């Protein structure tokens, strides 16, 4: 107790600096560099708008990441509910003042940035649930009264996001939330029951789906049913990846992206472009970087003493994993096109900000790994 207190109170900036996980920072920087090169390639080798703003964003958000690392974990612990509610407010704001683009209202104008609160929600939900479960003893986790709040904590933002409509992000938020709940120790049987219920409700849900969403699922099941329409994206994406071969077509030589066959190449399909130009070898390399990042985050969680830190790190690592996996499986034709960005690689401020905030908190956990939170 004494030593803990001592440690807690006597960490200087220098101490904190050396406590940083440099490998993680290095991996993020590498990923950032790769993403810039990929963005440069989407613009056919021109240093234009997308590359520029991606560079600025990465630079600013990376600083935020480092800055947030130095914030004490206790502060994050205290701020977690407030953070969550701010994001909820932003989501409500989207509903009222949101910017509509291509049929859905996802962004809110914060004057210096067009923010997509649903992306930030991915992190704030983790921190909210991590704090909530921090105190609850594992014996009581399965008690029904401790389940009400987490369920609402997930349900409320998700209902807003579904309403935007943005089914992909909503699903990712749900999965992220479920990861944390599961990590917190909820009995497996609840998951089994709820998945049975979800399966039973499937036909009802499908009835409520928008036509384009139904089309996406049908297209996923058989992309060739409408090769120039709904199936176009996935077919072209598979062609791009497949034609990359072992070592790829070479940097700036991806014909599929260069000749505009690739859809959404800045955002959701950036991995396709990368994979086309760098091939199997490059893809494995990128995937390894992601795997290492996830590993480092998980490791920080393991080293952390507090359950809050553990839950957050594990939750964030799992969320990070699910973003990467869903995006890659989507562009490789293993999942329907749901529209989820690849962390850091994809163009998009909110997504990157969300990841950087998450990494910042993770790093904060690392710095105060031995701290106990009460």
């Amino acid at each position, binding site marked *: 107790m004494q030593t803990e207190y001592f440690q807690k109170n006597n960490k200087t900036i220098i101490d904190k600096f050396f406590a940083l996980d440099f490998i993680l920072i290095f991996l993020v920087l590498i990923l950032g560099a790769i993403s810039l090169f990929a963005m440069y390639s989407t613009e056919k080798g021109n240093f234009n708008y997308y590359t520029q703003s991606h560079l600025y964003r990465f630079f600013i958000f990376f600083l935020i990441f480092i800055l947030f690392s130095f914030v004490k974990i206790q502060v994050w612990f205290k701020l977690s509910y407030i953070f969550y509610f701010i994001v909820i407010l932003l989501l409500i704001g989207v509903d009222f003042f949101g910017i509509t683009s291509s049929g859905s209202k996802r962004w809110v104008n914060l004057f210096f940035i067009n923010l997509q609160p649903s992306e930030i929600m991915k992190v704030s939900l983790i921190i909210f649930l991590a704090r909530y479960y921090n105190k609850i003893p594992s014996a009581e986790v399965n008690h029904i009264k401790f389940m009400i709040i987490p369920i609402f904590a997930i349900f409320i933002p998700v209902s807003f996001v579904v309403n935007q409509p943005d089914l992909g992000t909503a699903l990712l938020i749900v999965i992220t939330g479920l990861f944390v709940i599961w*990590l917190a120790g909820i009995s497996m049987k609840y998951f089994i029951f709820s998945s049975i219920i979800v399966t039973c409700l499937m036909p009802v849900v499908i009835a409520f789906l928008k036509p384009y969403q139904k089309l996406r699922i049908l297209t996923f099941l058989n992309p060739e049913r409408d090769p120039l329409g709904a199936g176009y994206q996935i077919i072209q994406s598979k062609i791009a990846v*497949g034609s990359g071969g072992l070592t790829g077509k070479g940097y700036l030589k991806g014909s599929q992206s260069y000749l505009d066959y690739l859809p959404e190449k800045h955002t959701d399909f950036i991995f396709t472009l990368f994979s086309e130009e760098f091939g199997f070898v490059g893809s494995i390399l990128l995937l390894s970087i992601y795997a290492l990042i996830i590993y480092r985050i998980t490791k920080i969680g393991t080293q952390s003493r507090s*359950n809050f830190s553990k839950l957050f790190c594990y939750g964030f690592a799992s969320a990070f994993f699910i973003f990467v996996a869903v995006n890659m499986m989507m562009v490789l034709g293993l999942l329907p096109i749901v529209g989820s960005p690849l962390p850091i690689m994809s163009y998009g401020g909110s997504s990157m900000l969300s990841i950087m905030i998450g990494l910042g908190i993770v790093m904060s956990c690392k710095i105060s790994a031995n701290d106990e939170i009460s």
Partner: protein
Amino acid sequence: MSINSKIFQNKSKIINRRMFILSTIKVVVFFGIISRLFYLQISENIKYRSLSDKNRLREWKIIPQRGILEDYFGTKIAENTQVYQLHMIPEDVPNLNELFFKLSKIINFNEEKKNYLIKRLKKRKPWQPIIISDNLSWSEFSKVNLFLHEVQGIKPVVSVARQYHNDGSNSHIVGYVSDTSAKDLKNSEFLRDINIPGLKTGKNGLEKSLNKQMIGVPGLQRFEVNAYGKRIKELDIVKGIAGKNFRTTLDQEVQKFTLTLLKDKSGAVCVMDIYTGDIVCMVSSPTYDANKFVHGISRDYWSSLINDKFKPLINKPMAGLYPPGSTIKPIVALSALENDVVSTKLVVECRGSVERYGHTYHCWKEKGHGFMNLRNAIKQSCDIYFYETARRLGIDRMSITAKNFGLGKKVLSSFNEEQIGVVPNTKWKLENIGKSWYLGETLISGIGQGYFQSTPLQLCLMISQLANGGYEIKPRIVDDKYALQATIDTWREEFSLRKIDINLTSPNIKKLYRNKENIKFVLDALYGATNEPMGTSYKSRFSKEKYMFAGKTGTSQVRTITEEERRLKLKNIDLPYEKRDHALFTAFAPYKNPRYGISVVIEHGGSGSSGAAPIARKVIKKVLDRHQLRKKYQLDLFQEA
């Protein structure tokens, strides 16, 4: 603290355990992604690479230069010429209506064209060039170039188009090319295979029958295109092979000359080399301007062609069917002699008409010819004599000889429009009309009336095969100067034919007669018809031996003459055009040492001797004048080879 701590310890154990499970799942999923990558990029790489290339590469076929058609002496009768076109790239045009307005001031660009263009533009991508005008005059073209800064999005282009010899004398034989239609594609596998947009295809005549060879092999331009089909860069170009050139056997000079003779008449003239079967001249009158079809025919010109009572679009030498009339009499006479049903000494009295099977059959000469023998009957074309000959011969034997000599079957194989005609016999009537043969019909068949139908080209072949001594020839209109061996063979063939004419023994040449004397007799009678007083074409004779020809006139009725008309003695000229007789003439020249056969048909041209023979006379002179030239030209070619 300790309890609390324990609970916490317990909790973090659960968390860590669950994370371990989760991490295992993550590893599995990542391996799933890796195996998917492996599947796509390594196992299926070839498939996706080819799909990517299919995306990326687009081939544009380049229309090859169409083969040229020449006449016998190398005059180009169908060639390719530069045309001035205007192309428009829709995406470069700031204001379409303004552009169209400006264009209407510069070139001939009317409302109809504008609407057509707007309709077509809707179906096209904005970067695809569209042809606004494909045949501008030089002055229009230079005007557009002058105002080019005013008409943004317009591109003046010099292109290649078909051009035909402008006198139109070959229009029917050469035919014309025009845009490939859906129907053309449906009918021709070749066109479907070649599949080039903008390709002009032969619609009729030689342009159609030689289409395949004349088109050539298209070249290829390979481009990299983007997702919207826009060409990014040219990667590769493969030169095509120009279409094959062809030389016809026609003599453009004779064609032109003949056409002027047929001015304001509706008819056909054919001239054939009686040994080689080379068609020296084949003209259909009136003609049309094939050039007007190349760039899409105007409605006015089309309706003027369609409504013309002289039917300029019909290829009369091959597709026009006429009763042969008296021109068939040499064949009837030959048939009767060959079958020994009459002798040359048979005498029949002609009183102008004869009563047979309850009907009266008339001779063209109302007063009658008096006592006629066979030679005189041919010479003066006595119908009564031939009624009797036909009666003795019978229709079936007559039809065999007529068919042998080229009637009732196609002469050239390469023309779709060519008609077969009719050589009637008892079987034919039963099959085609469903009735049995009446004996009276044999009589009128003997003078080439009744069911008989023949084309001028068939008549030309008939007289040619008589004139060469009764040997079968295979007429042709295309000679392949460019294939050396063919030329040499042609000459061998000709020389051997000439030899055979003297020698008369060769297994290759089919004899059409039984007794050579019969042929000689008929040819001699034809000599009389032209060169002796009382002969039907005596007035058209040449006294110079060089030009001296022998021929048979024919006047074929297009209607039955009623008794009343006979009483009124209506002259042909008094009848409405459609009811006037066709004038026919078949001949060969020169009489001594013959070389060419000719047939002339003038629709509703009156009698053969006055309507057709004078034209034949002029054509014969022209052809014979050019004979030495023709022979020399071919010899020169032969020696070059």
